């Protein structure tokens, strides 16, 4: 079975791993963009759960690490384009922090492709769909997070 959109509907059932992806997005751009994707009925895989914050600047690096420690297979942080931040420059500050997280992930041996920061504006519904589809695809290729694997 497949859905209109560039992805198949996966096989589900007991014992079949499904990716758990934590999304943390800003209220003004990416959350609105995700809403627009809804309005436009742009189909993407359902493996992401969104936590809404007012600005990506609010996102503590520890939130990302907490998600990974809790067993997330991937984390997506998404905010406004540079220069478009509702709070002037929160996304610049977030981006700096997120680079730090990526460096940290690399040095502890956690594939940094599991974590992504994107910029999706309130008018980019189609882009939001493409971003999530791609994130899910990447995570499916990478497989379950080694953190959860180690705990077995």
């Amino acid at each position, binding site marked *: *079975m497949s*859905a*209109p959109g560039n992805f198949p*509907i996966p096989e*589900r*059932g*007991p*014992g*079949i791993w*499904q990716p*758990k992806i*934590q999304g943390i997005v800003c*209220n*003004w*751009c990416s*959350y*609105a963009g*995700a*809403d*627009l*994707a*809804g*309005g436009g*009925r*742009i*189909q*993407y*895989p*359902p*493996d992401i*759960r969104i*936590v*809404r*914050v*007012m*600005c990506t*600047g*609010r*996102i*503590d690096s520890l*939130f990302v690490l*907490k*998600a990974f*420690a*809790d*067993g997330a297979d991937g984390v997506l942080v998404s905010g406004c384009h540079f*220069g478009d931040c*509702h*709070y002037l*420059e*929160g996304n610049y*500050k*977030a981006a700096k922090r997120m680079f730090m997280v990526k460096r940290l992930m690399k040095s502890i041996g956690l594939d940094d492709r599991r974590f992504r920061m994107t910029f999706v*504006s*309130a*008018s980019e519904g189609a882009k939001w*769909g493409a971003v999530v589809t791609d994130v899910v695809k990447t995570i499916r290729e990478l497989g379950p997070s080694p953190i*959860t694997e180690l*705990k*077995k």
Partner: protein
Amino acid sequence: MAEKKKATTKKTESKKEDTKKVAPVKQEVKKQAAAPAAKPKAAAASAAAPAKATVGSTTKQGDARIGVFICHCGTNIAGSMDIEAVQAYAKTLPNVAYVDNYKYMCSMPGQSVINKAVKENKLTGVVVAACSPRLHEPTFRTATKESGLNPFRFEMANIREQNSWVHMHDREGSTDKAKDAVRIAVAKAALLQDLFPKSVPVEKAAMVVGAGVAGMQAALDLAAAGIKTYLIESDMSIGGRMSQLDKTFPTLDCSQCILTPKMVDVGRSDKIELMTWSEVHEVEGYIGNFDVTIRKKARGVMTPKEAEAKGIVGGGCNGCGDCEAVCPVVKPNEFEIGMKPRKAIYINHPQVVPLIYTIDFNSCVKCGLCVTACGPEKRAIDLEMKDEFVKVKVGTAILATGYDIFPIEKKEEWGYKRFENVITSLEFERLICASGPTGGHLVRPSDGQTPKRVAFVLCAGSRDNTGTGKPYCSRFCCMYSLKHAHQIIEKIPGCVPYIFYMDIRSFGKMYEEFYYRIQDEGAKFIRGRVANILEDPKTKNLHVMTDDTLLNRPVDMEVDMVVLAAAIQPKEDTNRTRKLFGVSCSMDGWLLEAHPKLNPCGTTTAGVFLAGVCQGPKDIPDTVASAEGAASAASIPIHMGEVELEPYFASCIEEKCAGCGMCVNLCPYSALSLVEKDGRTVMQVTEAKCKGCGTCGGFCPGGAIWMNHFATPQIVAQIDAFLLGGEQ
């Protein structure tokens, strides 16, 4: 914290009963292992909660009684997921005291379901799983408030825009996602606190940026409502695009005749402070209290008012034009799209408001002839004038920045700027206008002859998916091209207009009738997108090549002149202006409204509104209607006198603050400062300046910043709820 631990152990014990399919057996083991690792940090994070609990909260997490209300939204949600399963699942969640569903939660009966449930079940929090909080959070907050709870005890789970609508063919995935969304929302709702919005007074003044017909109408309406209005225009006079037009469709009344009285009204109104040749330079503050810095560009000429302020009684520019007569510099006039000369000191056209000359300092040679011509009494001209910065305070602002013509020379196949007799519609307007460069005689630019065959190319750059043009419909080109056809039939006997069109979009009141009328008058319509235009080098006539899609045959038509109905695009400076006011834009650059249907004049920045074409292509009636709508919306906070700000402020947990001051520099609004308190240095928040972005809270190395409604324990609880589960 004790409750949290209990919940974790309970969850692992009763896991076998869980019917949730995405939680296979191996994840259970994983979670057990994950729990201890996660605890210390969760403990550190939620330790902040008791410290703050004394301020706003009345219930602890363990005592929370949450009601979950699931909306079907007709079949919008119910059609893509199993509502019954979501409801059954919600009942198993900790702290959930009541679960219900309804066809339309936002309707009156739906809201009374919430009201009744809160009262009967002594709920402490409400979760509605429905559409986006960006759409109905205010609605349900009001419902929560009416049921006797603090409105901020409400949390929304988005299961429509970000679930049922985007996973329409994946019922299982959609249902699982909805269950998780409810669980995440319940986890946050259990930790929500009572919050109280702050009321701030609203400055009894408004600002309108752009003085085209939209900006003028908005300013006039605001002034009529008794509100002091600053009208900012970057050009030297008001009127905008409409002042360049000759006639308007479908009534064929003269644009100047209906516009100039409005321009005069604007100039005359004592409530409107008109600032032409000015730009918004900086915007600070928030709804009710915007501090706007305006850059008054040096115009080199003083108004009578400015002259009086400088002690020159009876001086200043009176618009006599003596200076223009002596100025030796000749430049193309931009208002006439370069088809008429102007001097370095000039006005756009004789009817300008305000009637004040302006010096183009880029071309002025500072010879001083104009100063002599102006004379010792008026002394209006100051060649050394510098830009000035003026600060004003306003409660609300309207953006009406308008549009530019798409540079149609980018579509090389039509030969604009290569072939002399290919012109744009705006140039046609100036040529056919009695006050234009030819006095209203339509002539060919190549030889000054009157054309007998004129081709109109519609959708020139609009509805163009090649990447060069614009994908959208510019919305008024069909109609003005019909009007142009009428004008040449009327003015030039024997002249035939040929209209090359894709569709004629005559959607407005009396527009379709106008279309019939032009057909009857003898205009020729050829359905086909023009592929190419070639010039006969000898006669300078043009060959329009297309496919007649109705007769299904190729067309090569020789005409004397081609008029391109060029697409429109946002005004050049729109991007800079919108960023100052924190307004988003759509992919094409048009400014983004708060909601395309329910709030087309509002923006996501409270107190900033949109009027006219800056929001998207509009004809004049729609532009004026949108301007009146924006003016009405902008006057509401001013007449109310005060507005409530969302209480998402930062605050300092002083016992944790090390006084490092890292946050102080991070704040984009300078809302944070370091103060001495009980012999320690701690951070202090100026609530009036804080906009609640949380950039400080996202960085604080000690976790000492509490962000209302987006507090660290609340966000961590959401992440934990998703990844560690939380079923009982």
